[in-house]
Structure formats: structure tokens, C-alpha cells
């Protein structure tokens, strides 16, 4: 009995962990090249969910189309955030504190727009029943949706890694991440890098949002949690490492789910963030990141 329970929890952990991995990758795609702690990522995440809801449930569009459009709109939102909020500050010479504060401001505005438009009731998006039918394997159950989640996250990670290694713009993003000054000097189009970085990160987070909305439902407050998990995954994995973020996300998902074996589930969240605080204290560079110096520059 115990063994099967353990295995089920492990599998649940992997499924949730895949989504967390996606969140971590999406956040890394934005933070690593631009060093902007893009708190509004939470808004893009939540808005993707509400777009999906509005298209699929509100206007009755077919589900795949709704997802596609929602994801694209999210990408556009990310780029707009960069253009409207961060770029003007950057040109003014503002520091990371001003960027962060503006990001909070933006989050608050968008968050409350959601409250005005859709109110605060939880929403659900209906999907074909077959996807949610449990497939028993021995004493375990998982659904086709779960498998889809794992596969999609895997493809996303693979896609991002290949993109970073083999495309011109991907390599440019890596260059800017490692040496922003040098990259500008050798003529890398930093504006285009920022554009791609925000677009990529936003569409990835929208995909994660779509899955979570379908699986668990939609509420206005889920954004903050998503950003927190994304941040934890990114830091624990090592800033700049996509596979690290994915691995960390997976680990967090597994830890959360195995954790409820011994610890009441309402403390799940707390465990995650204690992990974060511990890593920040003792190994800020995470699994695969670079060592950090104290006073830089």
C-alpha cells in the first residue's frame, strides 16, 4: 500500500513539477538576458487564463483556437510591458529598484482590471471529458491531460535549449546574459533580444497557465504564487540555466507532493519558500549558476 501511495504522490509531483518547470523556464527567459525582475509576469499569467476562459467559455470558440490566441496575446502583453513600462525607465537611466516598483504598479493595475471585468469568482474551463478520464495502471491513476502536461513541458524545455544553442537570436540572448556591455559593443541588437526574451517568456507562461486553468480552475489570485514558484525554480536551478530551472521546478513539485505525506497540505507553500530562503542564504547561485560576488561593479 505504502509503496503505491508513494509512487502516486511521486507521479503527481512530476506532473505538477512539469508545470513548475515551465514556469521556471519562462521566467528565466526574461530575467537572464534582461536582469529585470518582471513581477508583471504574474499578470500575464493570470490574463492568459482569463483570455482562455473568455474565448472558450464566454464566446464559445473551439478550445485549441482559444489556447492559441490566448498564448499569442500573452506574448504581446509581455512585449508591451517591456515597451511601456521598462524601456522608458531604462532610457531614463533608472535602476533596478524603479523597474521593480513599476512592475508592482503594473501588476496591481492589471490585477484589478481583472477584478473589474471578471469579478473574483473562480472560473473553470471545460474540456473534453476523455482527457480527464483516469487511466489506471496498477494502483496508480493518471489522466491523458497529465501526460500531455509532461510531454508539453519536455518539448518546451527541449525547444528552448535548442533555440538558445542554435539560432542566431538565441545565441545573442546568451551573449547579452553573460556580458551585457560587451554584447552591445560587438553590435548585438539588444532591443530585439529584449523583444524576443519577453515574447518567449510570456508565451511559455501562458501555456503553463492554460494547463493549470484546465486542470485546476481559475481565480484572480493565482498569479503571485506562479511568480513565486517561477522565481524559486529559477534561483534554485541557477540563474541563467534553463535545464536547472526545469530540474528545480520538477524537484519543487515532487517535494510539495511527497511533503504532504508528512506535513499538512496547507503548509506546502511554506515549504517551497523556506527552500527558497535557504538557497538564497547558502547557495545563491543555485545548482548550475555562477558564483556571485558581493559588491559588483
Amino acid at each position: 500500500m505504502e509503496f503505491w501511495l508513494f509512487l502516486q504522490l511521486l507521479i503527481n509531483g512530476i506532473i505538477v513539477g512539469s508545470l513548475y518547470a515551465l514556469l521556471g523556464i519562462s521566467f528565466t527567459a526574461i530575467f537572464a538576458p534582461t536582469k529585470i525582475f518582471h513581477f508583471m509576469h504574474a499578470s500575464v499569467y493570470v490574463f492568459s487564463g482569463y483570455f482562455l476562459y473568455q474565448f472558450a467559455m464566454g464566446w464559445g470558440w473551439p478550445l485549441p483556437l482559444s489556447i492559441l490566441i490566448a498564448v499569442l496575446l500573452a506574448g504581446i502583453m509581455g512585449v508591451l510591458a517591456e515597451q511601456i513600462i521598462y524601456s522608458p525607465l531604462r532610457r531614463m537611466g533608472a535602476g533596478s529598484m524603479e523597474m521593480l516598483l513599476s512592475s508592482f504598479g503594473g501588476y496591481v493595475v492589471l490585477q484589478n482590471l481583472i477584478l473589474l471585468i471578471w469579478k473574483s469568482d473562480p472560473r473553470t474551463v471545460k474540456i473534453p471529458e476523455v482527457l480527464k478520464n483516469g487511466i489506471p495502471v496498477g494502483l496508480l491513476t493518471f489522466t491523458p491531460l497529465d501526460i500531455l502536461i509532461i510531454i508539453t513541458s519536455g518539448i518546451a524545455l527541449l525547444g528552448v535549449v535548442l533555440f538558445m544553442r542554435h539560432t542566431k537570436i538565441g545565441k545573442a540572448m546568451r551573449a547579452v546574459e553573460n556580458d551585457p556591455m560587451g554584447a552591445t559593443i560587438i553590435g548585438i541588437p539588444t532591443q530585439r533580444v529584449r523583444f524576443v526574451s519577453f515574447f518567449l517568456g510570456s508565451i511559455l507562461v501562458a501555456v503553463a497557465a492554460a494547463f493549470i486553468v484546465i486542470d485546476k480552475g481559475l481565480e484572480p489570485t493565482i498569479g503571485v504564487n506562479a511568480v513565486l514558484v517561477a522565481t524559486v525554480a529559477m534561483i534554485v536551478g541557477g540563474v541563467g540555466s534553463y535545464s536547472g530551472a526545469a530540474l528545480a521546478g520538477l524537484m519543487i513539485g515532487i517535494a510539495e507532493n511527497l511533503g504532504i505525506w508528512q506535513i499538512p497540505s496547507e503548509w506546502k507553500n511554506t515549504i517551497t519558500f523556506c527552500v527558497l530562503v535557504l538557497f538564497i542564504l547558502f547557495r545563491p547561485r543555485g545548482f548550475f549558476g555562477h558564483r556571485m560576488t558581493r559588491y559588483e561593479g
Partner: protein
Amino acid sequence: MNRDNNYFRVEGLSKAFGGLQAVENATFQVEKGKLTSLIGPNGAGKTTMFDLISGFLAADEGRILFKSQELVQRKPHEIVSLGMARTFQHLGLFNQLSVWDNIFLALPGKRRECLWGVFLPRWFLRHEERILEERTREILSFLGLGEKAGERVANLSWGDQKLVSIGRLLATDGEFLLLDEPASGLSDEQIEHLKSLLRGLVSKGKTILLIDHNMEAVMDISDWVIVLNFGKIIAEGKPGEILANEEVVRIYLGV
């Protein structure tokens, strides 16, 4: 020159950033009461060396000994209390504060400067304050900044800001002064002023280690010169010897 002194020594100092070896196995000494210069092409590791010595970077390997005290694991403010003080290439002045405040802040031993001091009545420790104010006035007039004491640093010219940074250095009362590019951005006249100021400090007993690119000024005022290239010390000696050193000339002329 007594080359076996115990005033300041660096032994086998190394520091790498990722794959880049910024400082490699550096060993040298600085003699007390002399002006030593650290020169080398851009990226040779000079500022890294300063950061290592003053505690802003942790060395990977090696030792730094100042008056027989090991500096490597220490925090910058501890090193300052041992008698070493530095400037920064970017100056790092407190731009929103006045010239007076910038210098006054650097004076050591202010018992009022802690959290409890906030609630002390103004007449308490007034005597100590008066001495410190006098010292600030001294430094200001020594540097010719008396008129500008109340000005916000952000409003001053670069040359004046440079003077403030030196004033701040003097205020720390350090005996071993590290100056990072003191001559940068100054006019010829200002550089002459600077040169005599630095030699003046040495004659009063200060020890100076400086980095600069202005070769003429460096050779003019230094007692000893150390040359760095790609993180390694490749030559050291009196200015005349260094100028005659073929390898050094080659590095600078890029031949």
C-alpha cells in the same frame, strides 16, 4: 630600498571570474612611506587587485599582509579600521549630500554615529563634534574647497569631485592610501596640482599605492613601479628601470 619589509605584502594572490583569470599568482611588496604605482594595459587586473586588497573581492588563493595582519577574509570596513583607505575610479561620492557631509562622514571614531546617537541630546558629545568639525574645515581648506562646502556633490565639476574624493580619503586618516585612477579626466594644470598633493602626503609619512594610465605623471612621482599584464606581474622597479624595460615598452606600444 629595503625589499624585505613587513609593512605590506601580497603573496601568491589569485582571482578568477568564471573562466577568466583576472589576477594570477601575484607577489609584491609596498614599502612604507613611499609612493608605489601599479600600471598595465586595460584589463590587466589592476582594479581587481585593488578590490582584492581593500576587501571588496575575496581572493581564490594567496595572502595579503598589512602590518602583519592577514587581510584576505576581512570585510572592507575592518580593513579601513586597520589604516588602509581607497578611492574608486567612478569616485563613488554621495551625490545627494554636500561636500561637507561627504568629508565629515569619513572621519573615524564618531561615537554619535550609531542608532542610539539619534536620541542623544545635541549638547552631549558636543566636544567631540567640535573637534571633528575643525578637522573637516582643515581638510576643506587644504584642498581649496572651503567655499563649496555646502554644495551638493552632484553639482560640482569633475575636477572638484576628484578633490572631494581625496578629501574623503584624507578624512579617514588612513596611513596606507590606495588611489584608483586619480588623474583621469583632469586637465594638465589639475594633474600638476595632484602630483604635488600626492608627494606632499608622502612627505608627511603616508604610504601610497596608485593605479593610473597617465605614464608621465606616474613616472614623475613614483618611488617604485609595478607592471601588470593579463593578471601577472611582469616587472617592477624604479621608474627609470621600468621605462628602459623592453617588454614593458612592447606591451604598451602593442608591438
